[in-house]
């Protein structure tokens, strides 16, 4: 296997570990943090898969769109929790 394939395996392992935090996380903030890490790992994974398949011109556009959607979703959920969880004992 080439170095790129091993890097892909490692990034997939990191994605699975961060999804474990999404399953375990005691609070909703932990789950959102794990989802953000998993999204960043998915962006890297899309670029690496494009490099492995030799269709890099297609996959890099998907990765760019995925990064933007990841940022927007995380920011929206953070602002929503900001509004709703204020002044609640936790």
């Amino acid at each position: 296997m080439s170095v790129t394939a091993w890097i892909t395996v490692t990034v997939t392992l990191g994605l699975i570990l961060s999804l474990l935090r999404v399953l375990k996380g005691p609070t909703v903030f932990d789950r959102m943090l794990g989802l953000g890490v998993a999204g960043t790992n998915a962006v890297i994974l899309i670029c690496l898969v494009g490099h492995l398949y030799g269709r890099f011109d297609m996959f890099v556009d998907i990765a760019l769109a995925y990064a933007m959607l990841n940022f927007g979703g995380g920011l929206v959920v953070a602002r929503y929790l900001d509004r709703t969880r204020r002044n609640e004992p936790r």
Partner: protein
Amino acid sequence: MMAYVADTLMILGAALLLIGAVGLLRLPDFYCRTHAATKPDTLGLVLILLGLAIHDGLTLNTVKMLTIILFVFLANPTSSHALGRAAILGRLVPWTPDRREDRR
């Protein structure tokens, strides 16, 4: 020669990602996990995508990949800062060594 540079960058980035994921699982509370999650993640993405860009040579794809790097470099700290602000405003108390019931 450039292939070795690219491989070294990508291996460093993958090691950072793995360390960040382990820290995300092992650290005791949300604020510590924010520390472990965001910084190695951003730097790992920058290193791995720079390695891929060096592998492929200078094309239009390299410019798109530099756009991804710049965007994530700005967006990832913003997103985690908004999440930490929401946690502080939501009265999530930080972990201290003598109060261990949050460790899960």
